[in-house]
């Protein structure tokens, strides 16, 4: 599945507009081009409606651009069928959400194992336990997720995203629904685990502090991308 590109993700002149009806349109992304090297962490900042989530959706192959192309490990995913993009997502992309999106009827371990079930890879069951061990939740593997705190839920969600060993991890405001203490814990864990797994991390955040932890910060203004300085030289993210 993997191409020979040195970049995990590459967007070339990508634009995405939405039809709002009545002849009105919304330009969520406007001629965006960028590249992400393997092992890097990127923070995406911007005001609400600036196109951050659209960028993540395009990167995950959940959405397609109107113009331009999105390349994942060198493959132009715009040219893939829905089924091919879905299969690619199974192995290459991990997703973490602001609202965790854990299934209430399943246990902690089952929630982590879910991508393995979907992919039909039963051998990932033991990896789920290993990941839970890493985030300190192995003793709660059999419990219902409804009994976890917000921070714990997000740790479970991170484990789920990492289960298949994806090369690209996309996180949409992973700490947006957590208190400060848990936010720090989860963000550090996310960065630590992605580094350890050798994955690339792109995360959307409204927090300057969180953005500062990334290798690069991308600013989105009304759909236009401004790739800024490395995180070692953070600058205030507009709209944060």
């Amino acid at each position, binding site marked *: 599945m993997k191409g020979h590109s040195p970049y995990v993700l590459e967007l070339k002149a990508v634009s995405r507009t939405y039809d709002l009806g009545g002849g009105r349109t919304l330009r969520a992304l406007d001629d965006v081009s960028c590249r992400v090297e393997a092992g890097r962490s990127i923070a995406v900042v911007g005001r609400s409606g600036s196109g951050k989530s659209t960028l993540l959706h395009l990167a995950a192959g959940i959405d397609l651009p109107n113009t331009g192309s999105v390349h994942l490990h060198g493959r132009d995913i715009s040219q893939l069928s829905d089924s091919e993009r879905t299969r690619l997502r199974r192995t290459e992309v991990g997703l973490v959400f602001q609202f965790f999106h854990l299934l209430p009827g399943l246990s902690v371990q089952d929630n982590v194992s879910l991508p393995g079930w979907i992919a039909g890879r039963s051998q990932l069951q033991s990896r789920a336990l290993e990941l839970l061990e890493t985030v300190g939740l192995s003793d709660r593997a059999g419990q219902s997720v409804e009994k976890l705190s917000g921070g714990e839920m997000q740790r479970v969600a991170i484990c789920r995203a990492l289960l*298949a060993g994806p090369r690209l991890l996309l996180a949409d405001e992973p700490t947006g629904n957590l208190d400060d203490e848990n936010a720090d814990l989860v963000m550090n864990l996310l960065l630590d685990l992605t580094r350890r797994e050798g994955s690339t991390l792109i995360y959307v955040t409204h927090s300057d502090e969180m953005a500062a932890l990334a290798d690069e910060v991308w600013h989105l203004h009304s759909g236009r991308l401004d790739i800024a300085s490395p995180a070692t030289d953070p600058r205030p993210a507009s709209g944060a």
Partner: protein
Amino acid sequence: MLRYFFLSLRTQFSRGRSLFVLSVLGVALGVASVVSIQVLNDNSLAAFRGGIRAISGDADLTVVGAGPAFSDSLYPTVLGTRGVELAIPLYQVAVSLADDPETYLEVVGVDLLAPTGLPVNPTSTPGDDDGFGAVSEALSVPGWVAVTPALAEDRGWSRGDTFVVSSGSRSVRLQVGALVDFQSYAPLASRYLAVMDISQAQALLGRPGKLQQIDVHLAEGVNPEDVRETLQDELGPMVRVTTPSSRTDDAANLLSAFRLNLTALSMISLFVGMFLIFSSTQASLVRRRREIGLLRSLGATRLQVLAWLIGEVAWLGLIGVAVGIPIGLFAATQNVEVVSATLTNIYLLSAIDSLRIPAQTYLLAAFVGIGGAVLGALFPAWDSTRKDPRALLSAFSVHEGTQGVAGRLALAGGILIGLALLATFFFRESWRYFGFAVGLVLLIALPMMTPVLVQAVSRITPAAGFNFSLAIRNLSARLQTTSISIASLAIAVSMMIGVTLLISSFRSTLATWVDDTIRADIYITTESWVRGGEDAFLTEDVLATLRGHGDVAAIETLRRLSLEIEGRPIWVGGVSLTLPDSLYSFPMREGNARAALESIRASDSCLISEPLSRKTKLGVGDSLQVRTPRGLERYPIVGVTYDYSSDGGTALVSEATMSRLFGEGPVQNVALFLAPETDPDEVIGELRAALPGVPLSYRSNRHIREEVFRIFDQTFAITRLLQGMALLVAACGISLTLLVVARERVAELALYRSLGALRRQIFGLFVGEGLGLALLGLVLGTVGGFALAGILVYIINPAFFGWTIRPDGSWAEWAQQCLTILAVAVLASLYPALKASRVPAQELTREDL
């Protein structure tokens, strides 16, 4: 608020067309079941009532035989009774059309010179089609008969045409003398009604000197009850003086069990439909909880919100009614033939000629459709409005509530069932409708068990991947929605399995009874026997020919009369009892067969059937009180036999006893026992050749068995339709539930998609959930079905029909039904699964997973 109501109605429709259509369909099918059965029930009596209206007109009183046809010597007594202004003698006989023996003509013999209640105009000319034409023609032309234009058109007859009918073993040629539209006079009258001169009817088709009815018109100012009592005293016990309306009541009583059972079964579909409404209202309220909270915050009172929600459901119910009525009428039209056949073959009432839709049917449909929908929505609507606005505006999951009460619900259901079982021991036989009450308790308790069952199954199902096991576990996560669907399916399955078990048990019991009792090689009767009654007799020369056949080793004759015993019409058979003891078989419920046989041979004692025993509460050692020309006489009951020939009841005496009681009379049936190694079909061929043109019906032992089961299956055909309707409503329930679930779980489905689930995987997951719903519904429904079968077999059947039915079921049939239900469930899941599989991963931006 009213403006908002209409706006919201439009929004609801445009936002959830599939849910709306399925909810309407659920109500519509429930309404259709009730409407079809009500129309058939109503028309089954209407045809009888129409016949009475056409024949008796506005007579004040009617004298009818309480046993065999009575002597016309009673006529002058009636006419001479004080207060009687006019008395019209009638002779009615059902004759078979020779070219179509299963079609009967109800010939009414009237005195054409007397002013009858019929649309007779003796002064009209022979060319008139609206009257009899010249009376002289009617009296002088042999076989002159007036028929309805509808029948004439059906058969291609014109005035002057002739046709052959059979009455007993006699064939008679009749001539169409006039076309009289009885239906314009009495719209419900059958097209098969025909009128001829009474003396011709007696001589050609019946018996001279006998009458079956005298219609009495009273002088003005006379008290009908006084005259009725006087006439009854003067005419003696062999007639009954009654009013035309009470004759309809008698017919209603005769049909009451048949009608009640069909009504109860039709209500089950409506009940299942109510679950559908409950489910869709619940789904709609969960979706709109914030809207309700907002309205409450803006000042809407609880009552206003409740009225708004109930009003919405009432609209939905109204549309369901509008759709359900034509479906019900169509179903009634499609099944009128089988119900009509049951009426004529089993209850000997008039066939349903054309369906009439009484105005109250529409009212009933509106009442059950809208009422059922409102009742189904009442609890969830009330539950939503009683919450304070703050709770409604905050995140809320109805499923959490159900998770908590599942155990308590199951306990309450268990207590209900326990109480019902306890009551069974005490009230089973003391209240006739007890079985229906227990059935209702079962249908209420069954859904209460559902949430616990779903939880338990979900708990024991291992998490083993994105497959059927996850589908089963998902059912527990949306407990309230899925429980309702499973419950409604379980009720439909209960009905299906319960009724199927009843039918198969009944069939098997009947087969055993037929094996025990049908022992002769050939049974001979006349073609008009089923409805011809006493007049459908075999003449002596026919009997002599039968007796004279060389291969006939023994012959048994049966004379059958309809008598009124304990206020109910029953058949009394007089049997010659000339065969060796070994050829008789009486399956006894009470008493000893050999001793009973000896007793009825030697004395004026009788055997009675089980239904008669149950309905009159008489048994061995009691006496049967019989009206005879000598007055009321008592005859000892020496045995109670299992008998499935009539739910009205039968009694058996010796032919000699019958002659002593009612005088000599002709026989209607003959059973032939052939010499060993004789081929019955050959003998039938030889008898046909020896009796050319005689309208006899010959049935070999094998043939009569087939006939019994043909009639049996015909009787239950309408029941199968009701089972199908209930299943269809339940299938709508599955579709509706899965659509609701798909809608509630948009974010979850998007999550699956974002985690790499293919569309077909989600499609498969949803079909799996449909299958899971069906399997759990099947498990619960099978348990309920067995319980319902027990209620039908052991409580309702004995109370209403009086038969002992031995439980017997076919595993193959059960398996076939299960497969059908599963297939229906899978089909019902396809559309929701398709919708679910189309949920895009972008929907994950929603927070309410």
